């Protein structure tokens, strides 16, 4: 039995759902960022798997999209963590349930 595209997609879906679980069910803002990073990594795994198993064209589109996605994820992580630090300085907490000052 060699690994098929289905197996890679199942692994990627499991990774995405673990990231979704961390994003939706944790209270700490850093955990939410960890979950978002995990979901982005699962999407990258999908791009690479479809590139590898699909028909080969001249330019490696799936690999290119994955590289750009990694760069954008890095920018997102930097800004997100800077936001967490700014929020912590202001409110002395990283618990997202306590950041409800915009509530009417």
């Amino acid at each position, binding site marked *: 039995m060699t*690994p*098929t595209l289905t197996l890679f997609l199942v692994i990627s879906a499991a990774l995405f*759902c673990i990231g979704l*679980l961390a994003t939706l069910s*944790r209270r700490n803002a850093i955990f939410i960022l960890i979950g978002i990073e995990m979901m982005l990594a699962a999407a990258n795994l999908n791009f690479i798997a479809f590139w590898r198993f699909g028909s080969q064209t001249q330019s490696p589109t799936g*690999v290119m999209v994955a590289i750009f996605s990694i760069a954008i994820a890095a*920018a997102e992580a930097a800004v997100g963590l800077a936001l967490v630090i700014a929020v912590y300085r202001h409110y002395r907490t990283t618990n997202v349930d306590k950041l409800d000052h915009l509530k009417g």
Partner: protein
Amino acid sequence: MSPAAFIVIAILTLAGAFAAASLSKLIHAALCLVVAFVGIAAFFFLLGAEFVGLVQVFVYVGAVAVLIVFTILLTRRADENTAGFNWGGVAIALAVFAGLLWAILQTPELSVAAPPIEALTVKRIGEALMTDYVWPLQCVGLLLTVALVGGLILVMDEKR
């Protein structure tokens, strides 16, 4: 693509990811996240995208993990009673997984073995980046500059 390597990497990645999502200590979760990212990089190597695997190790393990650890250090005194688990989130994640699994297993076209390909050299990636993808490359450069400046402004001292 050997099945043994696939199974080992899959178990490592999913275990690391699940530990990162469920451990209550932040620093342990960050270290488990590193394990999950190394597993994903190993998947990229297994799929023949060595360059992307290396980029994954450099960017995620080298930069993002260190950023997360420093943020944990800087927000250390934050209240620790964040261990509460929202079971609605667990239900939603399980429902999404069931839906995705159903959709994947319903599609018989996906159960194909990997076709033989010519190796993806860094030369080919560089040529594609400098010809077909030169505008996206410039936009990513601009985005990274803006993100760097924005991150600095966000954490600058408020008192001035």
